């Protein structure tokens, strides 16, 4: 979390954390999933692809938060 001062926390990091956790769970499910699951979704391993997509999204959000951190006003 961001350092106090303005009391602000960076929502981008929170979003990245949640979507990242989901990405991880789904990727693992996609890797160990049975063929029946894949057949259900019209032949697409949606857990795997969806999971990877979410991991990429989470990484991009962390990157954004790193590159453009919240500016805390120096004087209040």
């Amino acid at each position: 979390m961001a350092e106090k001062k303005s009391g602000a926390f960076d929502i981008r990091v929170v979003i990245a954390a949640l979507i990242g956790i989901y990405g991880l769970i789904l990727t693992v499910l996609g890797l160990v999933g049975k063929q029946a699951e894949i057949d259900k979704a019209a032949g697409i391993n949606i857990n795997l692809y969806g999971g990877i997509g979410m991991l990429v999204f989470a990484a991009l959000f962390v990157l954004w938060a790193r590159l453009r951190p919240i500016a805390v006003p120096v004087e209040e």
Partner: protein
Amino acid sequence: MLPQDSVLRLDAQAIDYIIIATYFVFVLGIGYLAKRAVSNSLDFFLSGRSLPAWVTGLAFISANLGAIEIMGMSANGAQYGMPTVHYFWIGAVPAMLFLGVVMMPFYYGSKVRSVPEFMLRRFGKPAHLVNAISFAVAQVLIAGVNLFLLATIVNVLLGWPIWVSVIVAAVIVLSYITLGGLSAAIYNEVLQFFVIVAALLPLTLVGLHKVGGWQGLVDKISAGTGGPEQLSAWPGNELSGFNSSFLSVVGLVFGLGFVLSFGYWTTNFVEVQRAMASKNMSAARRTPIIGSFPKMFIPFIVIIPGMIAAVAVPELQQYKANGGSGGEVTYNDALLLLMRDLLPNGMLGLAITGLLASFMAGMAANLSSFNTVMTYDLLERYVIKDRSDEFYLKTGRWVTVGGTIVAIGTAAIASGYSNLMDYLQQLFSFFNAPLFATFILGMFWKRMTAAAGWIGLVSGTATAVLVFVLSETGVIDLPGQGASFVGAGAAFVVDILVSVLVSSMTRAKQESELVGLVYSLTPKEQRTEAAGEGDHGWYRKPVLLAGISLGLVVVLNIVFG
């Protein structure tokens, strides 16, 4: 929908519950984190006017992305097809841009804390009371409806008893709003937006693959009950309920596109509050404009799945072929049926999370705007005056508790009289049209008097109610959305006429009192923003952004028209 052993029961496993539970841990965590930023009532009710524009912009559309929007629009997609996009491209985007470009300078610039407070400064107490009370009542009732819908869905999908889900959901929403106030609601709305996209985008892609891609969907709908007219947005006769294509286009553009949508998006405090929470004028104006970009693409993950469901799910296909009757399913189940048939465990849990998220955020948005109006506009102004700020902060928290309890009561009533709730919702959708008429006239015509403010509002609203009653009792016969277009249109016209008439007979306010509230009396510097830190760059100019957004909508209308 049937409770318990429904055909819609989803096969949720432990992993799906883990995914759902993870979301709620985050939701409450955000409430806790946001609490640290709340030290006075402005922090609690307006996030201390400190949020960046992309956050308020996403919250702006998320607050509206509730149960009615997601289930209702996918149902419309299944029933009417492509014309449903009008609710987004004609019925939302232009109004959002208008709010950002034209109206926001008055809202944000006059430093009012709510939409009713603007009423108070422009028209005085009677108009303020009418507006504040009707808004507060409507919000609590709608919060109850959202709560009830959430509970029904949980009941059908997972088999939980209705009252358990009502109370669990109410307690969760209550916890984070009383802790973190509007910031908690807004941050959760942003989180919810991403969860909904993560839930619905994969569903749409899998669905499209299932029916053989876009071309497959086009072929199946053209050959099916819907026919090829369900693939183009215009003229949308089925949706508007008019036989003549010309009237249908006129009805859509003026009824839906002008009175209904401008009324909703520009005067509804649930929405405007999100923009008021931004850090400066430039960010406040950009809020609805930034929101318009995701808004125009939401149809692709809400309406398209509905259209897919109508051709890919056998029960729904049958239902549609029967002209929308018989069987165990209805159009409202489109999204749920598609989830049931296509998603494996894991993705299924995420999809359920997305739906729950949207229902709760809808309710949270109602409550967070209710507590502001109730505390600032009603209690502080008329009942308990001149107390310390800390007192009103505490009051705001208790008002939230009270509002939640009333909402639970409303949910209980809704479970007994589901038709009543449908009526109420439709009725509220008319209320914004006269409000918009009063606002727009008041902002641009300095001669409009205080008496005209409240008399116009009351007579406009009475007209809306009258048209509603006439169409419900069959005196006016307009199927589809025609009745709401006519009702809102009539309310708008009557409000304007009565306001002009009353203004001509009463005394206008002093011009000095109207600075910052009326266009011609507000100096340009006060209406425009001085670009501050983080407002530079061409892509942060509100008017230019709005132009790009409008251009994109035109392109979308041509491509899918």
